[in-house]
């Protein structure tokens, strides 16, 4: 109702608005709280699917209930399919805590949606791998905005019934000779950020492109990636951003090869649906638990931050999603003793070989002295690719 | 050899569920005659017309048109045209296109079909409304457009379903004359459905009187009127005094049902010796109708008689004692209805 009233006023005052420029009126400094108050009894969380499991999807998978019992904070949660969607949801101010990938966290900080986090109030933060702390996607100007959760790579999923020879390269979805075999049964992630996957492939296979960071593309490099994706589109059956859609399409056989997450393959739980990390490496995510600047339940929010990075909960969540946990201690808690080995948890070198999602900006992330394409251009390019 | 009749119905029956609308009908319509089917609503006359046109399928029996069995033939393949009670003019077409419709579906070229349509309209004195839409016409004009549309295709038989029912009295009388003239001019066989006995009598060469899905009498108007075969016909066609056999025995000594037309009775103030049948009574009511006076007479034995007199001949008053007389040949012996 409030927004309707705003809209009414805005419409009536159209002429006045023309003169008055836009701008943020926030003089708020990013000052983290010094101490915690009384818990509010509830907390609302915005996260990727598989991050906040309370047993409704699978009775065996539940780390929310213990939290509620320990803290008395009732959890409500919402999942999202793309970082862009999450940004919009976060802006509504309805969520106290947000799990953000690297392409979202900085945007949240820049739009003043994220609150500074006092890591002293998160005891379990001490356990977290050092190389995950104070990274460029969770810390700005020395102020920390979040707690590292876990990280993992976008994988290549294939159906062994159709893709009889296990693929080892992303060429399965980028080379026409390969694509032609799976006409109309290829899938890809439906977000502008997927352009980085094409850029990474070019980076590895076409040195002349001069790409050194898939998130730092000048206009020419973006055009090359777009061209590659336009070729791919001819063979794509459908794009996915809702992970449930990929699950159903994989089960019916409408999709046989394409980008996936480990959690999707785990959910399908069939022998013939497999995932592999191709030799080129992959784009990836490195997620951060952030506190909303508009949080109505900051104390329960802090309680969640501390709980979800605790070894036990972090092990459950990251193992379920299929990504590397954030600490040695968590690695000790996984049900699969080889989990951390599989996902190279704590292996700093491996972590550096993954290209974590970042938000492309005009100032090239790789430090080149040219103008790079920003996320708005990527968005426009993505709609153009889809045509 | 007899000439082939344009319409020949044999044992024609039509049932709607439990209801028998037409019950084993046999009928021959002669070439070029104006044939009327007369009866109250629900007597089956309209159903017979719709069966001939092909809008309904006969339950049993056969329909022959011009010697050909068309019982199973669709309406559009029968060489008959219908003038509908509600005229059924196409609202989206001009008067000219309405009239030309039958020629259009016969693939007559535009010029010649418009020419013929204009001729038909001229025959109906409607040239001046050719470009109008049906809803811009008066009731009488629509009626004539419907006629023009039906005759332009030169059908063997023209079927008319109470075409004058919706018109007011004056217009109706005028249209009756036009219909009669048209039929004479075209020489087309007309099959005319009406519940108006006067209309049927004045227009037709022959009349069939319907009752409950059957024809109860068929004949010329004069035969129907003068010699009704049953009390039903006697009463439905014109007004009749009906005497059951006991009354007949008492009044003139024949033990049989009889009918007597009111205009055949004369009234006198005193006894007339030369009349064949004479009765006495008291005037119960005397109603002035302009050209006639209708007198209700109460006989001494209680029988009621209706008498029609020319106005101005006599003046009788209520309560007056009078003598009524008629001749023996005016009595119509009637078959007992139950027996028929």
């Amino acid at each position: 109702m409030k927004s309707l009233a705003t809209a009414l006023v805005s419409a009536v005052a159209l002429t006045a608005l023309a003169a008055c420029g836009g701008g943020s009126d926030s003089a708020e400094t990013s000052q983290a709280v010094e101490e915690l108050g009384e818990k509010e009894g509830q907390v609302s969380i915005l996260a990727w699917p598989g991050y906040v499991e309370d047993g409704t999807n699978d009775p065996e998978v539940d780390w929310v209930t213990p939290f509620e019992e320990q803290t008395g904070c009732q959890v409500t949660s919402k999942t999202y399919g793309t970082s862009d969607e999450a940004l919009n949801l976060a802006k509504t101010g309805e969520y106290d805590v947000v799990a953000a990938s690297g392409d979202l966290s900085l945007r949240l900080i820049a739009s003043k949606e994220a609150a500074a986090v006092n890591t002293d109030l998160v005891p379990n933060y001490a356990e977290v791998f050092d190389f995950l702390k104070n990274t460029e996607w969770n810390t700005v100007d020395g102020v920390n905005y979040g707690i590292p959760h876990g990280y993992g790579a976008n994988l290549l999923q294939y159906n062994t019934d159709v893709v009889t020879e296990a693929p080892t390269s992303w060429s399965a979805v980028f080379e026409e000779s390969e694509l032609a075999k799976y006409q109309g049964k290829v899938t890809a992630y439906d977000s502008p950020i997927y352009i980085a996957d094409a850029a990474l492939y070019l980076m590895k296979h076409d040195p002349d492109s001069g790409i050194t960071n898939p998130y730092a593309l000048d206009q020419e490099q973006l055009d090359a990636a777009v061209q590659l994706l336009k070729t791919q589109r001819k063979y794509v059956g459908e794009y996915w951003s809702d992970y449930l859609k990929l699950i159903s399409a994989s089960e019916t056989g409408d999709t046989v090869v394409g980008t996936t997450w480990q959690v999707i393959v785990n959910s399908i739980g069939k022998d013939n649906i497999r995932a592999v990390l191709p030799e080129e490496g992959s784009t990836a995510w490195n997620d951060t638990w952030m506190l909303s600047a508009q949080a109505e339940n900051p104390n329960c929010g802090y309680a969640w931050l501390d709980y979800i990075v605790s070894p036990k909960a972090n092990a459950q969540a990251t193992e379920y999603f299929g990504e590397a946990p954030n600490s040695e201690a968590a690695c000790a808690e996984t049900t699969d003793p080889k989990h951390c080995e599989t996902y190279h948890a704590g292996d700093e070198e491996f972590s550096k070989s993954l290209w974590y999602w970042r938000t492309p900006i005009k100032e090239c992330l790789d430090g080149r002295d040219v103008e790079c394409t920003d996320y708005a251009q990527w968005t426009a390019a993505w709609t153009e690719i889809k045509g | 050899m007899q000439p082939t009749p344009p319409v020949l119905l044999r044992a024609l029956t039509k049932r709607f569920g439990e209801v028998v609308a037409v019950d084993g009908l046999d009928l021959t319509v002669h070439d070029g005659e104006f044939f009327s089917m007369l009866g109250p609503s629900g007597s089956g006359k309209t159903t017979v017309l719709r069966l001939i046109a092909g809008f309904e399928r006969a339950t049993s029996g056969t329909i022959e048109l011009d010697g050909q069995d068309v019982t199973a033939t669709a309406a559009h393949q029968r060489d008959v045209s219908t003038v509908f009670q509600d005229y059924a003019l196409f609202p989206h077409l001009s008067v000219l296109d309405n009239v030309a419709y039958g020629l259009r579906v016969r693939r007559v070229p535009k010029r010649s079909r418009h020419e013929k349509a204009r001729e038909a309209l001229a025959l109906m004195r409607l040239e001046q409304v050719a470009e109008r839409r049906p809803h811009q016409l008066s009731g009488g004009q629509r009626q004539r457009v419907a006629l023009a549309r039906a005759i332009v295709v030169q059908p063997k038989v023209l079927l008319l379903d109470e075409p004058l029912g919706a018109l007011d009295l004056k217009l109706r009388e005028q249209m009756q004359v036009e219909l009669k003239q048209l039929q004479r001019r075209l020489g087309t066989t007309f099959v005319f459905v009406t519940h108006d006995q006067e209309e049927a009598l004045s227009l037709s060469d022959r009349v069939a009187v319907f009752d409950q899905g059957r024809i109860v009498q068929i004949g010329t108007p004069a035969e129907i009127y003068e010699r009704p075969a049953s009390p039903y016909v006697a009463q439905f066609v014109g007004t009749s005094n009906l005497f059951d056999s006991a009354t007949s025995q008492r009044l003139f000594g024949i033990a049989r049902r009889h009918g007597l037309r009111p205009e055949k009775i004369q009234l006198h103030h005193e006894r007339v010796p030369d009349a064949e049948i004479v009765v006495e009574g008291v005037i119960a009511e005397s109603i002035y109708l302009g050209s006639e006076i209708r007198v209700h007479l109460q006989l001494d034995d209680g029988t009621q008689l209706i008498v029609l007199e020319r106005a101005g001949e006599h003046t009788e008053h209520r309560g007056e004692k009078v003598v009524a007389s008629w001749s023996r040949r005016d009595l119509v012996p009637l078959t007992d209805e139950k027996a028929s």
Partner: protein
Amino acid sequence: MSHRVGALLGRYPALRLGLLIAAPLTWLVAVYVVALAALLVTALWQVDSFTGDLERTVSLENLKTVLTGELYRTVTLRTVGVAALVTVIDVLIALPIAFYMAKVATPRRRRILLIAVLTPLWASYLVKAFAWRATLSDGGLLEWLGTPIGLQSPGYGLSAVVMTQAYIWLPYVILPIFAGLERVPDSLLEASGDLGGGPVHTLRWVVLPLLVPAVIAGSIFSFSLTLGDYITVNIVGGTSQMLGNLVFVNAGAANNLPLAATIALIPIVVMLGYLAAVRRTGALDNL
């Protein structure tokens, strides 16, 4: 005082009418006109692509993008094409069904058919779209039915969108045509047959011309509803985009509300053009 007010109202019926419709009229203005105006105004704003903040400065940049961008032209043509195809298919299917219901079926069968036509309207739009997704899928019903006669499921894509939309909006096309046919007196059909017009002639020269307004009324439903759809495309459309998707992506994922508002103006303009074109036929009196 109240007496004088009453007298005043009695003397000026227009004033009475004005007071009576004032409340609903205000609501109408608030909901429809203002919402549309807000859309127009939003279309003139910009958004900061990094922070996602609205910049409330008036510029025609979005309009320029949409008018000159090839993408928008392609998608507009595709959307209008799909909407037109859906409408044509629906009208072709609706005509015989409506004809049978209005002119052939017994009253009992007509009631049953009417219920059969209306029943799908009670099911959720999403359920129907997902049912089609399953039907069209690899190894789905359509493939199972088609394989013996050498036909393939079209899979997900534009043809799937056309099929699904045609299915979903069919009742909205059948009902006005059925209502229009019921208003055509049987005697007109009999008169045509009586004058020698076979079924084809009767359909072509009598029934169809009389049904034009009803067909247009039905087509307005299927056309406008398809024009704005984005859910069906998402579910069975494969990689295809329609205008609704561009609006959804820009308003939702890309967080560019001004651009979304600008794109949303396209179907509005198309629809206004369509309505203006059919206004003359009198079809709007049938809505």
